[in-house]
């Protein structure tokens, strides 16, 4: 597969996943506010923190409130990670490879894009907003499902899978980090209704509430952390994502799991091993925030290694350095 094409598939999938995660954060926040109208003013700042782009936000909008956060994260064309920008990037990437993905996948991403554009300048009621984000999420699911169901599960699909799983691991860890931080003051109130509501919102934002209930029933902080980071079977948990990404990486190179033949496999393998042998109490004792921080640095290293290994094939004749030419930096 052409390096450029692989690069575009990878980023197409990452951007759609990024847009979906943003939609999830906002959808759940809107639900919390419906349950707890008094808390509305507390709910928006953490979303900005979770993007890691709080500096850009503050410069442009000052104090976060529902309107400016929703605009910034959803429609702002000047913010390169807003849902709208993500979809624009995803579609541009898809356009350069539409001969590689299935026509159905292209049509879906195109439909998603046009649907989003048709909402850009509307004022929406709370109900409309909830419906809007739910539909955005469903568009992303549909895209993901179409890729899985219509694309040859060869190299191209594995690059898409790699992109979406790495992005998802990143986003799940971020939302946990931010919520953990903002909920810390209430740790002493463990077991109160408010606390439950907040943590169940976090679980709901990753579609994990019911699964968590079945597995652990009572909500406790260590178990939520364990569930979101270390769970092997929950598809939005960090460990699940990294193991899937690692399998795709090995499918691409053809080397067996457990060994590495390139930098990307080495770095991802190390990260996977870290999680496989981690213990949740240790993680919390050493500081969840530090743990997540390090995780994100390592995810970036993996991303860089993927780029170097597969996308930046340089010829010995031409010494031109090809940088990531599209607006693809992960943050």
């Amino acid at each position, binding site marked *: 597969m052409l390096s450029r094409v692989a690069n575009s598939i990878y980023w197409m999938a990452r951007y759609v996943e990024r847009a979906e995660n943003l939609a999830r954060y906002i959808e759940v926040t809107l639900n919390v506010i419906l349950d707890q109208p008094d808390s509305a003013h507390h709910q928006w700042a953490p979303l900005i923190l979770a993007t890691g782009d709080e500096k850009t936000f503050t410069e442009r909008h000052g104090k976060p409130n529902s309107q400016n956060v929703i605009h910034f994260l959803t429609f702002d064309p000047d913010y390169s990670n807003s849902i709208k920008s993500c979809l*624009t990037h995803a579609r541009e990437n898809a*356009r350069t490879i539409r*001969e590689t993905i299935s026509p159905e996948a292209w049509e879906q991403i*195109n*439909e998603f894009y046009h649907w989003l554009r048709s909402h850009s300048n509307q004022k929406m009621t709370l109900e409309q907003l909830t419906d809007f984000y739910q539909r955005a999420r469903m568009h992303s699911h549909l895209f993901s499902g179409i890729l899985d169901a219509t694309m040859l599960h060869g190299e191209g699909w594995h*690059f898409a899978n790699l992109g979406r799983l790495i992005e998802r691991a990143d986003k799940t860890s971020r939302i946990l980090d931010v919520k953990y931080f903002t909920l810390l003051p209430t740790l002493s109130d463990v077991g109160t209704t408010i606390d439950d509501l907040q943590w169940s919102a976090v679980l709901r934002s990753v579609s994990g509430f019911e699964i968590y209930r079945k597995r652990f029933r009572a909500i406790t902080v260590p178990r939520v952390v364990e569930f979101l980071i270390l769970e092997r079977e929950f598809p939005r948990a960090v460990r699940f994502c990294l193991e899937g990404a690692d399998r795709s990486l090995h499918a*691409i190179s053809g080397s067996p799991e457990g060994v590495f033949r390139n930098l990307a496999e080495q770095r991802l393998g190390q990260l996977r091993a870290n999680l496989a042998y981690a213990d949740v109490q240790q993680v919390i004792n050493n500081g969840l925030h530090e743990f997540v921080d390090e995780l994100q640095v390592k995810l970036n290293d993996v991303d860089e290694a993927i780029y170097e290994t597969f996308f930046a094939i340089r010829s010995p*004749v031409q010494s031109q350095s090809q940088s990531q030419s599209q607006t693809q930096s992960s943050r």
Partner: protein
Amino acid sequence: MAFENYNTEKIPDELIQENGSPRMGAKLLIDQLNSMSMDEIRNRQQAMDRSLLHMGITFTVYGDDSGTEKIFPFDLVPRIVEAFEWSHIEAGLKQRIKALNEFINDIYHKQEIVGDEVLPRDLLEKAKSFRHQCVGLNPPGGIWCHVTGTDLVRHSDGAIYVLEDNLRCPSGVSYVLQNRMIMKRTFPQVFAASNVRPVIDYPSRLYSTLSQLAPEHVKDPVVVVLTPGIYNSAYYEHSFLAQQMGVELVEGRDLVVQDGSVFMRTTDGFRRVDVIYRRIDDDFIDPQAFRADSMLGVPGLFDAYKNGRVALANAPGTGVADDKVIYAFVPDMIRYYLGEEPILPNVPTYVCARDVDQKYVLSNLDKLVVKAANEAGGYGMLIGPHSTAEQQAEFAEKIKEDPRNYIAQPTLMLSRVPTLIEDHFEGRHVDLRPYVLYGKEGVWVLPGGLTRVALRKGSLVVNSSQGGGSKDTWVMARNAAEAAENETTM
């Protein structure tokens, strides 16, 4: 009755006779349209527009930052070509392409046509698109122009004329295939009953034409489509053709020349490329051989081509025949190389480099269409009857300054096809671009083509950049067997 008030205004109409009744091949379609209400017809048109938008067959409106995208307008009434007429067109195109190919091969070798004084030497030497780098080249099988999209028009005398040959990178064939797919959904019953010849096997024909170009020792040749990238207005087509042929779509930056061969960068290292269907003009394919400022090309590609390490389609250098002055000599080429009379006539063309012609042109600017020799897309043109005295004076200056760069033709009255305009049908002028493939097994003409339509009332300019749209083109089969000849591949 959709066609109750339709008026041909005595202009030749491809579907309706002067007395208002439909032509033979159009009867089923017109009956169907007449049986529908205008609301129903408009609904079908809107459904077609929506599916084009969803398929992403759009172009970005220049100068609009908000990213507004538009579809190329596609009208639901097809152009219909009767079987007997198509046989005539097909024979004419085959003859023309063979002569043009002989011509290109000749001028890059012995230049006998110049030696025998059929084509004046200075006209050839001043053709901007003559590539001296191509002198002495021997493309595989002696074939230079593998893919051609010839523009045809019907004049008010009822005859079909060749307007342009387009031997470089003719575009539009993807619309032929997509338009057909949408039309089949829109008028399934008429389609089934009408004996329309299929166009669906174009991609496999194109693939086999291309793969035959590979050096003989290569068993399973790697064919690619080379595109300038997503900002090119024909990008959709490049990607569509690559997808339909099942080959890689590459950009210049994906390719590299090493040890004299061409390779593409893949996730698994470098992979050799044998045949390139290039959709980039000669000028830009290789900065070492042609324009040094080209960012789209591949350094060293032309050398690899000259040494037979990679094949290019079309061959570099074919653009010389697109020079409108050279065009004027195609009928002579047919006589010279093939010893035959041209089947399809040229539009009568005045070559301003000839004194007699120039004199006539300058005193008849208000009646003629003047064209620059090397412009395309409807640019650099004066349409005499629609022009002002100042515009005519401006062109008179240009012609006197550089007579070699101008030709003039009588203003043609292009034929029309009924077209949905708001809530009724009106005639709009059309041209027709059939597509021709020239491979080792001979010349093949796709039974169909792109019908371009000037949507503005009275306009004769069909180019999409200037308010043109498209229509499906139905070539009627002589019999049911011909209509079904390719159904199995659908």
